[in-house]
């Protein structure tokens, strides 16, 4: 269970990075990636995945 960022759609704005309760998001080559080993899709933390809620590009973050 994990989410992934579609690199071609990512604007590199960094909005998702500080919102992740699992510190699973980091920058790589100008865009951001999610560590699938750390991602819990925010279950147990929030009602909805925080990265999807804050991301300005709809469809940029999907289930891996």
């Amino acid at each position, binding site marked *: 269970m994990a989410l992934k960022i579609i690199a071609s759609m990512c604007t*590199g704005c960094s909005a998702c990075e500080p919102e992740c309760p699992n510190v699973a998001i980091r920058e790589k080559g100008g865009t951001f990636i999610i560590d699938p080993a750390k991602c819990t899709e925010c279950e147990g933390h929030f009602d909805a995945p925080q990265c999807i809620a804050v991301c300005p590009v709809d469809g940029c973050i999907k289930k891996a």
Partner: protein
Amino acid sequence: MSTTAFVSIGDLKKGRAAVSQILETAAAGGCSTSGGEGKASCGSSGGPEDMPAEIWEKVKNHPCYSEEAHHHYARMHVAVAPACNIQCNYCNRKYDCSNESRPGVVSQKLTPDQAVKKVLAVASEIPQMTVLGIAGPGDALANPAKTFETFRRLQEEAPDIKLCLSTNGLQLPQYVDEICKYNIDHVTITINMVDPRVGAQIYPWIFWDHRRVTGLEAATILHEQQMKGLEMLTARGVLTKINSVLIPGINDEHLIKVNREVKKRGAFLHNIMPLISEAEHGTHFGLTGQRGPTAQELKEVQDACMGGANLMRHCRQCRADAVGLLGEDRSDEFTLDKIAEMDVVYDLDKRRAYQQQVEVERQKQHAAKVDARQAAQADDGVEADLTLLVAVATEGQGKVNQHFGHATEFQIYELGKGEATFVGHRRVDLYCQGGYGEDEQLPSIVNAINDCHAVLVSKIGACPRDELKAAGIEPVDEYAHEFIEKAALSWFAGYRARVAAGEIAHTPRGDASIRQGAFTGATEAAA
């Protein structure tokens, strides 16, 4: 004290009461309330005689807060704040935020460390750079760690530079203490509505309390946070500028109410900007055909707000990494690669000495303006309420000092009897490219200044001169290198004399178009 050079004795007397006056001003309903001896009509074009010394100190060399200063002093933005916490229908986050910067262009994102290096490099090269702002490319307060780290270091390493930031206001109440901690005494809040029903048409969602909130609820939260933040800043004596994007059919008349509400809460300046919504920028408004206002529509709303919070009309909607005077963008000279090769020496004394020279020039411009206004008071037999617009080509210092062919923007002045008032600017495509006039550019320039009776330039070629005349716009080069207000009023006195003598008949001009796609800089326009 270096400040004594800039303030008259009368102002020093007023200075003592300045702090309490700011609070009184706020309590009495913001700007342009006159109260007793030290009147507080804090006009953006006001001089030291119009406002308390405390406020004058804050705005006199801030190009965004003083129309007069914007001819002389430069600003820069550093793009350390890429994230945003709301979505606006006029913004596509693939590019920079379009209310604070130029749409369709991506700023070079910087870390706080890179930003500090860049500021020091620019401050050494451009000693009249007095203001550093963080305006995005997202929202300054949606990136608090990067924003405040940059401010903290600059306060230590470049203590003479004024710091400012702009925000949508959602997180503003939470950071007011932090803002005051770093002596940030200018904050811009983008406020497009004071009614959530209007807001719901502008903001599809906000990110709030770990949720994506939509619709009326989102607009209500944003509105409440904006008003609360503005009130808190006013109470702390921080000067605020309110930016509003004019969206025809959605908030045009509503902005008059916005003006009233922000004035009530102590806003110093109100800046009403035209919506930019080209389809190719991929914004919601761009894709759904929501148009921007014409020059006349923009001016009508701005004029309707006169007497409320003071209006800023010299905004260039510059990008989040802009460098230079407001009408120019020298960011290409300060890319990370180029900064790495520069030998940066931050010489505070040299900067102060240079800025004193700039201040002398600015005082001269101010004096010339006052003289010209007085000289134009005499009765000349023409109806007193005859007003018109003129376009001016300038490259700074408040003078008519630019060749028509080199202008990438014209400044627009409204002339009335004894009054020359800056009312805005128009971007144009460069007419002269590599020494040759581009005749296909001329119609677009004419469209941009079509509401003007004359264009004041330092020089103009024979071809565009004839074509401007054919379009009914008088090209004027007799006042080359004179101060703008003096030149404009001198020309206007001659115009009125010609009307009085029956040589010409005064006829109103038509509307003008606002060029979509913000200022692109001379080098890019020529490419």
